[in-house]
Each structure stands twice: as C-alpha cells, then as structure tokens.
C-alpha cells in the first residue's frame, strides 16, 4: 500500500521533521507499488510530509517507468514524468505543446480550466513557436545576463536601504513582508515603469492570480483588473513614451505593427506576475535554509564567492514550481519504455527531477559546494525562464545582504510553527519571523 501522507501544516510537522534542524524524510514504500499498472493512477499532486522536501511518493515514481499515470483533481489521467533525463527530454521536445487549449492538455486547477476557455488572454508561455518566439524575442535583450547585471548596483542599494532600516529597528521582523516580497516586486515595477503608488494594487492582484485558494471567478476578476491597469499604462506610454520597457515595446513593437496591444497587455502581466511572485517565494525559502541548514550561513559569510553556486543549489533543492509544468503530446512520442500518444497530457515534476540521484548524488542534501547548474528549476526547452538571470541577481544579492546586515539571524518562532504556502503555484512561506 502507498503510505498515506498528511499535510505540511503549521504545528503538524511529523516528528521525523521536528528537530532544531529540518531533517529529511526517507523514501517509503517505493518497491511496494506497481506504478506502471494502469489501474494505479494515484491522485496528483501528492502532499508533502516534510515542508522542505517534495512528496516522498515522487521518489518511488522516479524508480519506475519513464512516465506513470496519475489522476488530476477533475478525474482525468495524465502522464507524470519524474526523472531528470526524461523531464529534460519532454521539455526540450517540440512535439509537446504548451498551448492549454490543445487536446489532452492537463488542467491542473479549476482556474486553469476557466482560463483555457479564454485563449485571447494567454501570454507567450502558453504558446508554441513561431508565436512564442516572436513575442519572447522582443524581451530577450532586456533580460540578458549582461543587461540585468547592470541592475545589480540598484538592487544592492534597494537592499541596503531596507536592511539598514530593519537592522536599526530591531527584531522580530517578518522577512517575507519586509524583504523577500517587496524587493522583487519593486525591481520588476521599475523595469516596467510602473509607478510606486501602484505597487500595492499590482501586488494584491498578482497574489490572487497564483493562489489556488481563490475561485476561478475571483482569479479572472483580478486578472481583468490587472489587464485594465496595464492597458491604461500602455496607452499612457504611447502618448508620452519614457525609457522603460513598456514604452520601448510600444514604440518599437506595437507602433511598427510587430505586436498588437492585445498581445502586449498579457505580456506585461506575465512579466509582472512571474517576475516577482516566484523570486519572492524562492528568496524566502533561501532565508529559511540559511536559518536551518547547519553551517550554511557561516560558510557563505566566510566565503562570499560561494553565493552564486549556493543559489543554484537552493534553486535545485527548493524547486518552487512544486507541481511541475504541463504539456500535451501533439503526436505519438516514445519516452524511454513508454509510448505517449498524441492528445495525451503530461506533467513534468521539476521538484522530482531536481532530486534525481542519478543526476545529483545525495539529492536530499543541500550542499552549497555541489555543481547544481543542471537543475531544472527554471524549466528546459524554448520556454526556459526568461527572467532567470534577473532572478539569480536578486537571489544572490538578497542572500549576501542578509548575511551582511543581520549576522546573528535566527528564527523568532519554533520551526514547526512556520506556515507554508502550499496552494500557491510557487511554493513558499506565508511569513518568516526572524530576530537577531
């Protein structure tokens, strides 16, 4: 029988996780389940036991066939891919479409089902080439590693300003509210030229878009409000262009008829929502690791050159896109020992792939010395995260700044009282109360 697993709720961490240092749960029952059996299509996503580890069943899937059947919330069966090599193969294969209206495309939530019926609101992450690459390539230049590197001093100043205030005021403080959420959100707003006074508006709407706790109607309303705001912003920039990204897209792309306003608005929404929620989630978990992984903070303080590598490892370890990426086969594709037929849905578990011991020895150990660059936290294939370099700069700088400004940082509450955001598309912490 498969092990039954509880929810990783505050106060409910199993004893096995409840140590001063968060410990990892060993994989259970992998050899007792015949995952290839068509009759066994367990519900997906599974639940975590330990809040910093993926659900333990995923390890059992990884030792099975290249893909296994799982059942989504509304009863449809899709293929689940958990191995690193197979995840890479599917994500790099253009026979798998990212278009949600494609036959068999996995509907991960009630909301994705609603949005599927409104394809006009889709951004380029839900398109295939050539439309995808036509739109994405308009942004490539602004998100090149060298372009975002120019933002590093600005991000550093922003962090110094925030942390000087925090340090002077004294603990306890919620690092999510004070730091990990506002920093990425201010950076993307700055890039897009969104005025500071609109910050709260877009943060609140964006939070609704990625939270499964809201009804599809509420999500659609938040999206429409955001789109309405962005449309006004686009019109304002068309009248009076500035040097920001939105102005340049209007002048260079919309005015030259390479793109319509109807395409630009969802593009801006994608940059806004994907640009800060994910980085914020990852940053908060990184801070948690600083507090709970023995020796990590001391080591990074001693050797700041370890920070970029540690960030790669933290991306691998936490894999915040916890339920993975969805695709559908547009033709029959053989994946290892499995034939995936045209019109069948596939879910690629990035968190399982990033804990594949064939790729990462001792995968459940967070090791800042590991070369983790092959992780799939940013995806793989043509849709690999456009903002990955900006995310890296922000994550590196947040880690360095906290190490520098708050040297005796510790949790302000017992570790088992931390509340994790499990219903949000990017896994994270609701709050991280710390003191020093």
């Amino acid at each position: 029988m498969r092990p039954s697993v509880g929810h990783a709720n505050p106060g409910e961490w199993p004893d096995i996780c409840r140590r001063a240092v968060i410990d990892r749960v060993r994989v259970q029952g992998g050899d007792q389940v015949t995952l290839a059996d068509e009759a066994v299509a367990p519900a997906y996503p599974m639940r975590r036991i330990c809040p910093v580890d993926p659900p333990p069943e995923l390890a059992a899937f990884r030792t099975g066939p290249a893909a296994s059947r799982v059942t989504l919330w509304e009863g449809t069966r899709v293929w689940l891919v958990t191995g690193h090599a197979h995840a890479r193969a599917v994500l790099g294969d253009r026979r798998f479409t990212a278009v949600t209206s494609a036959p068999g495309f996995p509907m991960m939530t009630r909301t994705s089902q609603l949005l599927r019926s409104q394809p006009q609101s889709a951004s380029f992450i839900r398109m295939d080439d050539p439309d995808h690459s036509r739109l994405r390539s308009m942004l490539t230049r602004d998100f090149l590693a060298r372009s975002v590197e120019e933002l590093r001093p600005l991000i550093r100043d922003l962090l110094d300003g925030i942390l000087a205030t925090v340090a002077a005021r004294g603990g306890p403080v919620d690092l999510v509210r004070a730091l990990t959420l506002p920093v990425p959100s201010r950076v993307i707003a700055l890039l897009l030229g969104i005025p500071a006074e609109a910050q709260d508006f877009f943060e609140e709407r964006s939070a609704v878009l990625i939270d499964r706790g809201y009804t599809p109607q509420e999500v659609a309303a938040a999206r429409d409000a955001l789109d309405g705001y962005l449309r006004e912003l686009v019109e304002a920039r068309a009248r009076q262009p500035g040097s920001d990204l939105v102005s340049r897209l209007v002048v260079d792309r919309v005015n030259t008829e390479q793109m319509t306003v109807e395409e630009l608005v969802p593009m801006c929404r994608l940059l806004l929502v994907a640009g800060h929620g994910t980085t914020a989630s990852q940053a908060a978990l990184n801070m948690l690791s600083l507090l709970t992984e023995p020796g990590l903070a001391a080591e990074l303080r001693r050797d700041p050159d370890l920070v970029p590598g540690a960030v790669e490892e933290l991306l691998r370890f936490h894999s915040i896109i916890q339920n993975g990426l969805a695709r559908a086969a547009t033709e029959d594709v053989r994946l290892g020992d499995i034939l995936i037929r045209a019109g069948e849905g596939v879910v690629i578990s990035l968190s399982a792939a990033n804990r594949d011991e064939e790729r990462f020895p001792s995968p459940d150990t967070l090791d800042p010395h590991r070369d983790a660059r092959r992780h799939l936290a940013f995806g793989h294939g043509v849709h690999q995260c456009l903002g990955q370099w900006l995310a890296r700069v922000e994550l590196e700088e947040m880690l360095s700044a906290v190490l520098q400004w708050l040297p005796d940082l510790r949790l302000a509450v017992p570790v088992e009282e931390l509340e994790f955001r499990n219903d949000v598309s990017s896994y994270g912490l609701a709050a991280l109360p710390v003191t020093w």
Partner: protein
Amino acid sequence: MRKLVVEVDMAACCGAGRCAATEPRVFDQDPNNGTVVLLDPEPAPPLHESVMLCETLCPCGAISVTPVSSS
C-alpha cells in the same frame, strides 16, 4: 590528442545565455537579440569539460559538440 568541434544552430538558439555564462571563452551573445556567437569552434582541451556542459545546459539544443580524433 582529443579534439572537440563545436557547432551552433542559429535557428534553434533561443538566446537563454547559459553557454556564455558558463564558458565565456568559447561563447558570447549578440547584445541585441541574445543569440549565440561562437568565439572558438575548436576549444583547447582545458575547456572541453565546460564546453560539454554548455551543450547539456543549452535549453534549446542549439549547441553540438563532436569529438574528432586527430592523427
């Protein structure tokens, strides 16, 4: 001595920049659209390992590295 020949597929390149970040002695990026610029199609042996990593890291499969036996 083992020789590696590096080739890039400009049509496949999506400008992610993993190669230029990993091995800047062999790969650069066009500053305008991010597409790969191959600086050294036959990199010296000390670079072989990182060039092969670039082939793996490229999200779009735009880099191919072929060992050639030289006599």
